[in-house]
Structures are given as C-alpha cells and as structure tokens.
C-alpha cells in the first residue's frame, strides 16, 4: 500500500509525495540449527463455553449456611475438573485457527450488537480526571489537509535530547518535479543542521495524525544530502525526554 502525504515547503508550495516506514525488522529469527523449517500456528486452548465463568454458571446449587457461596461453587468445580475434565473440549482444544474476527462480549460471555463507548482519562497518579465520548482523530496529512513547515527550526544538537522520536518515516519523490522539491528541502535543512517542526490542520499548528483513528504526534523533518541524492526523515514524537516524577 502506497501512502501519501501533502507537504508544503517554506514558500508554502505544496506537493503530494509518498512516505515509507523506517521501522526496522528483526535481524535474527529463531530456527533449527540444521536449517529445518519452523512453522508457527495459532491454536484454540478453550472457548467461552468452557471458561471458568461458564462452567460455574451451570451449577444450580443452593447456598449452604456458613459457607461462602463463591467458594462453595469453586469447590464443586474443582472436583469436576479433577474427575470429569469439563474444561477440555476434545474436538476444539488444539485446533488450528487462521482467521479470527473481533466481537464484544458481555459478562455472560455472549456477543453484543449495540455498544456504548466511554473514554476515561487518568492522571499520572492514576486518578480519574474525566469521562467523555471517545475522541476519534482523523488523518490530517492527505486529501484536503496540507502538512506545513511551522517555521520552528531547531538545531539537531539542541533537539535530540528534548524529545523521544519513536517513529520514523522516509519521504520519497514521485517524479522529477517532486525530486527537486524534496531535494531543496533536504538541502536547506542539512545546511542548517537543524530539524523543522511540521504541523497540520486548518490552523497549521496541530500535531499530525498519520491515519484515521491514529494517535496525534508532533513531527520534525530532518534532511541529509549526499551529492545529488537526498534523504528526508520525518520523526514523530509523543514524549518529551523528562525524568520520571519522584514517587
């Protein structure tokens, strides 16, 4: 899937270009020393019908005086687990599965078809600050939206220890015109040995949301030059390099 971004330069000229993730893949894989193939499979261990909760709900026992009812049922189940293995479905346990859809289930472990979502916001000390309808972030780097240079140029030597740049993308040209466009941008940033803060949205100050429903990130653009070749890296961050609060 090719992903596009609308990017404007310092002169506010914009162009649609592509970008590619720079997240590296692991260099080491686990295998047999003789090179024989290892197959990874997902298997079923249990289902909702044989979960502890479902098994407990099958008993029609009445509470015994002086005995905790939960403990009474748990004791009954423990006996059955030893004697009858109700937690094992011989037809299903160990079955390979490939395609799993996602559903919401209620406390009775039944699928639900109408749901309400509430977003709870907690402080660093785990105190509930507020509840609200979940906020959905729409992608603001393509379509009508243009990612702009904020004008905040930060020398590399001053910015590297201010933020944690968790994600990286490489910007790429799509034709000769956009090659010139991106090369000039990279050269300007390389000459100044600085990162340019980018921003999106109507105000041109908002953090970037790279895909619908994604998280907002502050973005910084780095440019490198080697002869007639360029390298533009988009660094994303949602974390300042700050010490942990004292406990």
């Amino acid at each position: 899937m090719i992903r596009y971004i609308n990017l404007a330069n310092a002169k506010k000229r914009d162009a649609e270009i592509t970008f590619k993730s720079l997240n590296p893949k692991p260099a080491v894989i686990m295998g047999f020393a003789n090179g024989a193939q290892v197959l990874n499979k997902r298997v079923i261990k249990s289902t909702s019908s044989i979960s502890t909760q479902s098994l407990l709900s099958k008993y029609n026992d009445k509470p015994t005086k002086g005995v905790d009812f939960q403990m009474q049922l748990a004791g009954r189940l423990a006996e059955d687990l030893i004697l009858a293995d109700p937690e094992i479905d011989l037809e299903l346990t160990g079955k390979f599965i490939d395609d799993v859809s996602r559903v919401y289930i209620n406390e009775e472990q039944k699928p639900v078809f109408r749901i309400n979502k509430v977003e709870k916001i907690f402080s660093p000390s785990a105190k509930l600050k507020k509840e609200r309808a979940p906020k959905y972030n729409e992608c603001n780097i393509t379509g009508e939206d243009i990612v702009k240079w904020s004008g905040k140029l930060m020398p590399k030597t001053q910015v590297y220890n201010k933020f944690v740049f968790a994600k990286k993308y490489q910007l790429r040209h799509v034709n000769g015109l956009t090659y010139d466009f991106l090369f000039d941008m990279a050269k300007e940033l390389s000459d100044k040995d600085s990162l340019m803060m980018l921003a999106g949205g109507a105000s041109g100050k908002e953090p970037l949301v790279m895909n619908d429903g994604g998280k907002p990130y502050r973005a910084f653009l780095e440019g490198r030059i080697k002869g007639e070749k360029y390298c533009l890296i988009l660094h994303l961050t949602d974390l300042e390099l700050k010490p942990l609060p004292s406990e």
Partner: protein
Amino acid sequence: MAKKAKFSFNGLSIEADLKKVDRKKIYGWSSIEVYDENKSKCKLAGLAEGKYILPTGSTSLVMLNTKGENISRSELVGLDRSGKRVDKVPSVYDRTVMLREATVDEYLSLSVKSVYQLNIEEKKEDFLKVLNAGKIFYFVFNYREDYEGDDAYLISNENEVFAITGMLSEPEFLGLQDNEQELVAEDIDDIEDTDEGDLDFAMF
C-alpha cells in the same frame, strides 16, 4: 536492591539501575470502556469460524516442526538473515558495558522502543558533565541474555541520564531515478492499531 548495570568509557566507570520511563507516568493515559444496552461492561473477544467465542487467553501460538510435532523454544537457535547461527548477546547486567562515542545523525536514525532513566549513585556529576557537553554513547542493550540485542544510546537532558533503546533504521539516499522504488507494498501492520485511546497533548 535493584540490579545495577556497569558502563565504562575512557577509564570512567559508572554503575546504574535502569528504570523504564513510561509515558503514562508523565502525562497520564486514557482507556476506552465499552458497555452494552443494559450497561453491562463488555470485553473484546475473538470469533473463530463464525461460532467459537474466544475470550482473551483462549488461544496460543505454537511452534511445529515439518512433521507437525510441537517443539519448545529451547530447541531453537538464533539465525541471521543468511541462515547463519548467531551467538547470544549477554545481558547488560552480566558484564561491563563498553561505550563508544556516536554522532547525532546516528542517534537520530534510531527507531525507539524503550526509554530508561539511569539512577546513578556515584560519579553522576562527572558523567553528566561529559554528556551535557553534547556527547552521545552507543552500546548494545539486552535486558536478558538473548540472540539479538537492541541498539542503545546514552544521552542526558542536563539533569538526568537516559538510555534510549531500539533498532537503527537504514534510511536511503534517493537520487532522481529512485522514485520507482516507492512502488512497493508497505506492511499493513505498520498502520497503528486504532483501538488504543490516548491523550491529546500539547507539549509546546
């Protein structure tokens, strides 16, 4: 007492315990709770073959040999991309970690996985002086002995020392003719999972 890692550079040695910097502890967090029509709390589960409901923990990943027999991880070894066996990388707690100086550009190529704050009891000021002068140090980080270590850098933000760990990315230098290379399928799994709610933040 917390385990300490020992770092050494140019005759200067420091010992530190590493505390993971969690975003939640700095900014807080948000979570999304789901309720049905009767205000009963709901959980996300898997649905296999349209009929089996799989609550969290109902499935497991298994490794099999070509005969279909279950194998344990201890039977496997680490192999590089060419299929050559690789040695285990020791834990940072098992030996003195030798640091080498790195450049800002090298550090900026790191795709960050985790951040640790170093709690240094002795010679912290000496080490901070070196880092605050703009020095960055590289080392290989492994919390436990394993086949692949992470790339890691020690940097300071004036008052504290941090280890930033992850994997170095390999950005390409692109010439005029390199535009065709962009026409490759990008991994879908790089697109974020949109279920996680998060705080909007304003850091400036």
